[in-house]
């Protein structure tokens, strides 16, 4: 029951975001659209950002990495999804502080990158610390790349360039793991 109220609130917000920026939307108009009370809204969420957060979490759960060999696929799917919902994404993005968006993007990218890094580390004598460091570095790289892509209005050319990105990350990881293992062996 509560989950369906939460989803109902989220869908209504998604509807409103087709035409308005997040900071122009009020809780009162959102609850009117849902046909629920303000109390019911606040039972579930502290504010509208909470709804966005919940939406992102739902999305992340759906996009969860199952197979690290296939890491490109969820990456591609996310970018395509963001692009399909361009108006909505920009209406949220423009109301948010950049640091929040970065945080969300890192939260999305971290498990993907970690899975990819672990795949590359297989068979090499590298430490957990080193895997963590590489994951962090590449997560930041991926998150900022996506962020500037959103800022530029999400041109399709970036999605087409994912092949190159994949090669870059793969090569970079393979080389680094090899050098780290050598260093650890000494």
């Amino acid at each position, binding site marked *: 029951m509560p989950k369906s109220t939460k989803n109902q609130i989220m869908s209504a917000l998604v509807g409103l975001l087709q035409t308005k920026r997040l900071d122009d939307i009020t809780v009162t108009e959102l609850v009117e659209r849902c046909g629920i*009370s*303000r*109390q*019911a*809204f*606040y*039972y*579930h*969420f*502290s*504010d509208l950002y909470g709804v966005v957060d919940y939406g992102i979490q739902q999305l992340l759960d759906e996009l969860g990495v199952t197979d690290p060999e296939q890491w490109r696929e969820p990456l591609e799917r996310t970018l395509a999804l963001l692009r399909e919902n361009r108006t909505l994404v920009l209406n949220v993005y423009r109301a948010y502080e950049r640091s929040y968006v970065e945080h969300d993007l890192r939260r999305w990218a971290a498990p993907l990158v970690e899975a990819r890094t672990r795949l590359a580390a297989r068979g090499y004598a590298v430490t957990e610390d080193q895997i963590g460091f590489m994951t962090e570095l590449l997560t930041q790289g991926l998150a900022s790349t996506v962020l500037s892509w959103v800022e530029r209005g999400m041109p399709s050319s970036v999605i087409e360039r994912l092949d190159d990105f994949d090669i870059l990350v793969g090569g970079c990881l393979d080389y680094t793991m090899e050098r780290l293992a050598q260093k650890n062996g000494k």
Partner: protein
Amino acid sequence: MSMMNSVKRAGFRAMYGYLDKDPDANIPRLMDWVDRFAGNGPNSFPDQRAAFRKVIENPDNNWFRLIRSMWTDVDDEVRKTFFENFMLNGNLIGWTIQEEARERYGCNIPWAILLDPTSACNLHCTGCWAAEYGNKLNLTFDEIDSIITQGKELGVYIYIYTGGEPMVRKDDLIALCNKHSDCEFLCFTNATLIDEDFADQMLRVKNFVPAISVEGFEEATDGRRGDGVFQKVRRAMDILKARKLPFGTSCCYTSANLDSISSEEFVDNLVDWGAKFAWYFHYMPVGNDAAPELMPSPEQREQMYDRIRAYRQTKPLFVIDFQNDGEYVGGCIAGGRRYLHINANGDVDPCVFIHYSDSNIREKSLLDCLRAPMFMAYHDGQPFNENHLKPCPMLENPEKLREMVEKTGARSTDLQSPESAEHLCAKCDGYAQAWDPTAQRLWSCGHSCAQCGQEEAAAQRQAG
């Protein structure tokens, strides 16, 4: 936020991070941080800080054990929220905003607001003031939301639910915690409506702390509150403890239960049950049906005075007796000086026990209520007595309440059975007279001793 508040926030968070990392090693060093903040000014309490440093550096000390238990017994996120909302917002940050407002508006600005979400209760206890309001009044979600929003503008981050049984409005309370996630909410409750689901919601919102009413052991609690209530209370405490949710207790002492409710055995039980604080309230003969014979005798009240002070030095429990601890807060804290009470009809009362008002929150802003004649009479009259063992304008100084009600034309907000100020105060005249000699003796002794200590310390400082 002002520059100073940003600095406080950053400093406080750094301190918390430091404590959180290694509480055992860092609790004793807490006073280094406090000393740095306090400086060496005339109002920096150097002797008190030195005394507190002595106790906190000893791991066997009750205060050390109480603070330490915040790490062993309380959920990490709930503890962090408590430090942030209660300590930082409610005190460090809130205080600055309150002081500015006091200066600007020339009236009392509270530290906490007590409010009744509802007059309804699922129990029917003898002598409860909630019963006097009848069972049908409610503050709506939007009204409470507005009170909190107005309160925050004046620097108030602490909200305490009274009633009625506030938990009758469970979903609203959770929604308010969620909406005002920067505030700390406390709730007087009979605890019978605390179940697993509600406790899970408490864990989700993290800023709700119950103060559970107990009358003593099983027989006493069930005697006043009804059969089986004590077992329900114990069950609620277990549910809270299992989720590492902090709670305290609220105990009303009367001439009939004082001995057992203030016994060491009972206090040890509170600690075992998991309570972190115990608030004691003197029975007040409020209402046309009150039983003045339940007011403690001077000997009993003195016994309470001694016992609570002894527990504060020995038990890992934050114990306060609101009638005998006026010396720590400069006497009466009602009338908005540190708190006020809004009933389920919207009447803004100066105190949970004093139901005379000239303001209703449905008609005026919170600030205008604080500037109305009745609250200004409190503002101008406080402290009502230089002896803080006689803090109350009703119980120990009944002529003061008569005078304020007369002067301001405040009316009784008791909707069930309005009681005249004369009728109420007449019940206190004899009590006040009887308590006076004991109060004077305890005050001059307790007070001049503290004075001697200060003089000695001052002399030492001069000599050194």
